């Protein structure tokens, strides 16, 4: 159970109990807390990204023998050089925008990230990546970062672009708002004029109530209060005019909202964005225009490129870091359905104005020898080389300016991961 208000009440913070003035108070708070302006955008490639179709070892003959129909041809990949183990790598041909950002030195690809005994369950896997906990339980790793901030924390410190709170953002201190669509984030009324205003005033006052000794109900009050306290600031984001055109995909529109929140300076520091469809068990088809994986890459590329150009135009790229994850990579050999089943380690993407771009870690060797140390599961899946928590640690310490050992529960720092 992740009860936010209970903890809050226990810690004796009285400021919220008064509080018709809470919204303005929170805005001030947000401005103070947002003063460093640095943003973290956590991007979930949901479903289990087949990173071998995204970052292709195009000189590895085993890649093509194990993927006779879905291997991306060497002649098509966007070559980006070799990693430290001298494996030549190329991006999926549809990732032309990411290639551009890579060439500008602002895109890092961290290979073979995962953990020991990796879960092949979507749900447990997502929980593990969200928490950094081997059982996938407890608060989110970003949520624990929010809990490390001085109280009280403004709810709009975080902005979740999906409809429900992702595990990554679950925290004790703050109910991060879910704002899938800024324009619909409003308070309506069956009446107009002064009647409508009276309703809204009542709703704001009611939402500041704290039901003592009813923590489960307090959770709903918490959400209600956060909603009422964030309405006006979110409305400013709904009115944002970007400097570039974003694709009309869920992901593109979510990135547009992120850029809007940054540009309007509403105090948000962490964002959560997801784009799904990566569970490509069948008809993965990375090669044909409008094939399933081809489209996934198109969505990813076009949304990120529009965002990159927009925030660069706004002078905000320096303050931006995007970090991707996916619950697992996929099986190396294709299955009978032209797809791939659940696998293990995968590739994480980091992109931002202060990212030291390039290839981190080493690619797997795809030969089928069961003793191949870069693989596991009888050489069926990619074995991890870098614990994903080492990547989180780098971000927590070097970008968020917090203490990764305290937040992750142990010191996961690892050398050679200086992407930020």
């Amino acid at each position, binding site marked *: 159970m992740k009860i936010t208000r209970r903890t809050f009440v226990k810690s004796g913070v009285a400021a919220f109990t008064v509080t018709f003035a809470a919204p303005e108070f929170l805005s001030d708070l947000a401005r103070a807390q947002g003063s460093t302006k640095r943003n973290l955008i956590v991007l979930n490639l949901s479903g289990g990204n087949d990173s071998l179709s995204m970052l292709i070892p195009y000189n590895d003959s085993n890649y093509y023998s194990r993927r006779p129909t879905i291997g991306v041809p060497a002649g098509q990949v966007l070559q980006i050089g070799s990693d430290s183990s001298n494996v030549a790598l190329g991006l999926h041909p549809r990732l032309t925008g990411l290639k551009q950002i890579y060439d500008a030195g602002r895109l890092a690809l961290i290979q073979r990230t995962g953990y020991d005994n990796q879960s092949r*369950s979507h749900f447990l896997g997502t929980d593990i990546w969200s928490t950094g906990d081997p059982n996938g339980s407890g608060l989110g790793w970003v949520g624990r970062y929010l809990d490390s901030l001085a109280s009280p924390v403004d709810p709009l410190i975080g902005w979740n672009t999906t409809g429900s709170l992702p595990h990554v953002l679950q925290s004790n201190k703050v109910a991060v708002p879910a704002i899938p669509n800024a324009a619909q984030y409003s*308070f309506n009324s069956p009446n107009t004029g002064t009647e409508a205003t009276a309703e809204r005033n009542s709703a704001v006052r009611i939402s500041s109530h704290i039901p003592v000794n009813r923590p489960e109900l307090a959770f709903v009050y918490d959400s209600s209060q956060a909603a009422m306290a964030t309405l006006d600031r979110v409305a400013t984001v709904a009115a944002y005019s970007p400097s570039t055109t974003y694709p009309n995909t869920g992901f593109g529109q979510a990135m547009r909202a992120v850029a809007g929140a940054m540009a309007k300076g509403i105090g948000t520091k962490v964002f959560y964005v997801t784009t799904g469809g990566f569970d490509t068990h069948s008809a993965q088809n990375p090669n044909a225009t409008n094939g399933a994986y081809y489209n996934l890459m198109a969505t990813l590329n076009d949304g990120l490129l529009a965002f990159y150009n927009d925030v660069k135009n706004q002078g905000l790229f320096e303050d931006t870091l995007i970090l991707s994850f996916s619950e697992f990579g996929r099986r190396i050999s294709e299955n009978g359905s032209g797809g791939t089943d659940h696998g293990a380690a995968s590739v994480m993407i980091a992109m931002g104005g202060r990212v030291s771009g390039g290839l981190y870690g080493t690619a797997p060797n795809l030969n089928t020898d069961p003793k191949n140390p870069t693989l596991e599961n009888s050489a069926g899946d990619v074995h991890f080389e870098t614990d994903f928590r080492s990547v989180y640690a780098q971000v927590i310490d070097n970008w968020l300016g917090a203490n990764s050992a305290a937040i992750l529960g142990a010191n996961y720092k690892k050398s050679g991961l200086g992407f930020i």
Partner: protein
Amino acid sequence: MASSNSAIGHLLRRAGFGGRPDEYGYYGQMSTSQAVDALVNYDSVADDVDANIGKPGFLTTTSNGAFSPNTVVNDARQRWVFRMVHSNRPLQEKMTLFWHNHFATGYQKIAGATSAADGTRYMAAKSSEDTNHVRGQIEMLRDNALGNFRDILMNIAKDTAMLYWLDGRTNTKAKPQENFAREIMELFTVGVGNYTEPDVYAGARVFTGWNLARSSDGVQQYAYVAAQHETTAKTFSFAVYGDGGKTIPARSAADGMRDGEDFINGLAGNPMTARYLAGKLWKYFVSEFRSAPQAWITRIANTYLANQYEMKPVIREVLLSSEFWDPSSYWARYAWPVEFVVRAIKEVGWNGFSTNNTLTPLSNMGQVLFEPPDVAGWDAGQTWFATGAMLARMNFASTLAGNQKFNLATTAKNAGQGKSAASMQAYFLDQLSTAPLDSSVTAELSSYMTATGAWTGSDAQMQAKSSGLVHLIAGLPEYQLC
């Protein structure tokens, strides 16, 4: 009617979607155990709710062209909301929703592989209304809502929508497909921790050849394709057979369909399945605020096993359990968006309201019927209450109250409640059932009643205040519990 703490109200919120005034009247005359029996034995009540679609006195529907719930998915959604509000077999709809969440299948993927019309058919067609008598997945679940779990599982493994959804249609000897095999263990039966990765690989081989074939009338139907079945023995980490045997023997291809049947039998009878289902039933029917006592889980699991996986005695046991009736179980669940929406309609009124007006709000609240987020179903409980979803609930309350403005004012006036702000408030707090309100909340509602001027009881004021008050009450956190 709805005195919030009444036992019948509690029962109707859990075994149904709250009560219409006539349901309070009907079940209110019974003892609680009689009411449980009446709800569980819904077979004796005519299943005629669909015949009321389009009739005066009921919710309306809105479509592009003729209402086509067997081929247009938004119409299928409207039909289900209509049933939830108007059915006289509320537990059937409630259990169908339970199974929909349990075997969570999404329309989009099926429609993408077929067409919008066929995707809807395979999800929702009523066989008596389909040209080729296709019975969609939800109709199968509805027909078996309190049936035998093994039968449901067998039907699901052969369900057209499921064979698309978890890719069973492509599971072949040369390339076994793990998707269905994994989820049948992880999500449908024994649960995480009670199977191993090698079990997933073996399970995939069990279901090789459980594919789809196109019938002469163009319908995709389950077919066992012997040539695609992998015939070697399959060994599991758990017992598949009653004698403790863990190995499904090697069989001829012609006989290979029995592999899957044995496996499903074994999973249905696995004691971990019994406990896994009991745990889900606890959260769905009894409480999300405290965990199930182990003794309760054991009792329900034993009922399940002793009755050969029949769900009717299981649900009866759940609803008659002392834990269900314990005061701590009242208002101890977070209402799912459809539970909230349907209860609000039942309590506020529906004359002139269209089921279509629930669809976008439900999406904003995070629950689109026939489109669960993934095969694990909706992530219920506190996850529903992200801020955007909370606003969507308040805004649905606003839409419904605005739509019913005239009816609300008229009904309150006819009930003689227009005399004072206080009597209006008391009246609507009785019509709408909420978890107990702290006095400071009722005080805020009182000050709202006169916030824009003293009480006069004029028609204009009655309409403004009844709709505004209903909006505020249905938007209260206390109304989001059930």
